[in-house]
């Protein structure tokens, strides 16, 4: 039993408490967040309401991440010589979880930071410079978006054609990025039997921006069209086949793609719980919220293992990508409950809203429950389908040779 009274060498390991150095690092992180994140929130609150994720405008998010870049803490998975902070897994966890606790959204240029950079480190070779692409990310000047991430799961609308003059790209595709814009896109394309990662400039190829600003949750779905777009060799990276291809895909899915700590959902649940209690809602409603709280706790525990497991190989079968999808899935269900609990408050009908608006959710906050739900569902099913991730995980389990499916 020994609650609180560790004995003998049994307890030298496996502990949740931080060491002195780790505590000092956390204090440093907390100070930074308390100072600068609070400042951004205070200076530029969202006009869209004060609830949870929507309590800060996207412009403020952009300024906030510029501050994080200036601090040198934005590129947490990057090598130190390219701008990474050189953190160990526990330091990464402390940063991610403390951001999560404050509902700080993913980096404004998450695709660039989490996918494009690490992918170029893996695919780039010594014969050409990848700096031209990395520079904009390290200075936070260019925003990136992503096309479908695996051709085995998704059909791409793009055609890569080889001719005597070189390669050209044609077709339409939806690029997913953040709501802050999309300067460059990373897409997968096939030419004959070969698969390439192609980096393309978006700019005037944009046909339609399909989603607008939804507070800090802002996302961007950009439909682009290319007509015989010349692609230079500097823009193309051949994806190797076989086990190396698996490693590349693992890097994309396992390296924090779209990663955000599930802890950011805690405030959403607490907010809804307060609302349900204030309205004296029935036991069934409260129970639904408690269930969501427990699911969040399990994701929190899973997150710890996933992050530590990446370097310490305790559970290297776990994937952050799958955790992400479960987080999104939970987010979706929280929003479903939110829409459900708010009932007619959430129906975007102007007459009803003016009559029954719920002041605690902020002006228009009720409408956002619906908007958020649509957004999250589009994200889950549109960009990274849950089925796709399951297929990935099945293949990953197969790769371990231990739990082959």
């Amino acid at each position, binding site marked *: 039993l020994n609650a*609180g009274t560790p004995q003998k060498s049994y307890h030298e390991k496996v502990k949740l408490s931080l060491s002195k150095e780790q505590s000092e690092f956390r204090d440093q992180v907390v100070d930074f967040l308390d100072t600068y994140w609070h400042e951004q929130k205070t200076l530029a609150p969202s006009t869209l309401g004060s609830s949870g994720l929507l309590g800060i405008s996207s412009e403020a998010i952009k300024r906030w991440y510029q501050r994080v870049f200036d601090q040198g803490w934005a590129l947490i998975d990057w090598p130190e010589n390219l701008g990474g902070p050189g953190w160990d897994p526990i330091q990464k966890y402390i940063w991610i979880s403390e951001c999560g606790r404050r509902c700080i959204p993913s980096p404004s240029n998450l695709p660039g930071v989490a996918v494009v950079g690490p992918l170029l480190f893996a695919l780039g070779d010594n014969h050409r410079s990848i700096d031209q692409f990395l520079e904009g990310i390290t200075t936070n000047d260019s925003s990136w978006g992503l096309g479908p991430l695996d051709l085995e799961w998704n059909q791409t609308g793009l055609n890569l054609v080889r001719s005597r003059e070189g390669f050209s790209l044609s077709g339409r595709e939806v690029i997913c990025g953040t709501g802050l814009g999309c300067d460059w896109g990373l897409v997968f394309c096939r030419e004959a039997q070969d698969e390439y990662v192609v980096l393309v400039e978006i700019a005037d190829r944009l046909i339609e921006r399909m989603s607008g600003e939804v507070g800090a949750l802002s996302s961007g779905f950009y439909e682009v069209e290319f007509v015989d777009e010349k692609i230079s060799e500097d823009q193309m990276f051949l994806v190797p086949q076989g086990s190396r291809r698996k490693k590349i895909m693992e890097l994309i899915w396992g390296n924090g793609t779209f990663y955000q700590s599930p802890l950011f959902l805690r405030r959403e649940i607490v907010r809804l719980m307060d609302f349900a209690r204030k309205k004296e809602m029935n036991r069934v409603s409260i129970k639904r919220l408690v269930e969501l709280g*427990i699911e969040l706790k399990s994701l929190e525990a899973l997150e710890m293992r996933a992050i530590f497991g990446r370097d310490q190989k305790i559970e290297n079968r776990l994937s952050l990508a799958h955790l992400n999808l479960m987080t999104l899935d939970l987010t979706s269900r929280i929003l479903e409950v939110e829409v459900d609990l708010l009932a007619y408050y959430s129906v975007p009908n102007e007459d009803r809203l003016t009559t029954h608006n719920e002041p605690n959710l902020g002006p228009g906050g009720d409408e956002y429950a619906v908007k958020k739900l649509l957004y999250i569902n589009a994200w889950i099913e549109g960009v990274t389908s849950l*089925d796709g991730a*399951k297929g990935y995980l099945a293949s990953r389990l197969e790769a371990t040779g231990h739990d082959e499916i």
Partner: protein
Amino acid sequence: MDFSFSDEQTLLQESVSRFIANDYGFEERQKHSRSDLGYSAENWKTFAELGWLGVPFAEGAGGFGGGAVEMMLMMEEFGKGLVVEPYLATVAACGAALKVAGSEDQQAAYIPDIVGGSTLWALAFAEPQGRFNLADLLTVATSDKGKYVISGHKAVVINGPNANFFIVSARTGGEQRDKDGVSLFIIPSDAAGLSRRDYPTVDGQRACELTLDQVELDESNILGEEGQGLVVLEQAIDFATLAIGSEAVGCMEVLYKDTVEYCKNREQFGQPIGKFQVLQHRMVDMFMEHEQSKSLMFMAAMRWDEGYGPEAQKAVSAFKVQVGKSGKFIGQSAVQLHGGMGMTDELNIGHYFKRLTIIDTMFGNVDHHLKRFGDL
């Protein structure tokens, strides 16, 4: 913050794992479960020799000074083998109560015998009307001239048929559901006025209905302070919940892995059924449910070792909820993916599912722990 195990912990886990793999096959388990005792006395002796019965107890009492993490490691391995030996009742549940509330004399008198394997214990806390409310007691102990006289009825006392001692909760004051006024008593199984109706449970364990008719005890039999037994009982039950949840995680791992293995070998339409995407996704869901439960198991054990309080209680309840839900999903999926085979008595799948089903109801089901988590 460190998630890796110490050498001692690794050795402990490996020794249990080896025993389960080499000496505790499904056939042996079924044989022990169907014997008169309902478990193997030989195995119990081995547990004692290997020091497993002393893992959670302090060195001064002959134990090894382990904590929740060690209990978690052992029970997870026990779960993989569907172990029927009464470790949970004797060491995890009653051992916890003795450790939390036992006087020096009581610990010196009882714990060495538990560690040595010569006595078995059972925690008699449940009553038919009480559901999962530990304070809802109709069993009453009245005191008179330094003696206690206890009368009442205890239901589903796990390991009751084999126990040498019972720890029984009874009301020494207050109303039927009051938190104050609950006391715990150590009662030898041969005490006058004690009678049992024994039966096997659906998961191959042994239990009894215990009737106490004017059982006379002296003051040395009370465990902890009179009227303050509920706090002790809650802590012991929480520790047992953590232990049984860990056992469930072990059960889930076997179900998930055996199902994967079966789907790789069973052919239909000219190929292994594991190649079908729908089944692959179901197995990935099983895998993730297992991993979520295992993650919460780690969290609950580590929170416990940091100190018993609301954080540890919340973690234990969250763990039990997850175990209840995941156990049901994984059990049902394993049976379905095995087809009709999964229902047969000859195959282990159904037995693991039955154990998981019982585990869900023990020490509070999903609904109970959901409510508790919300209230904490």
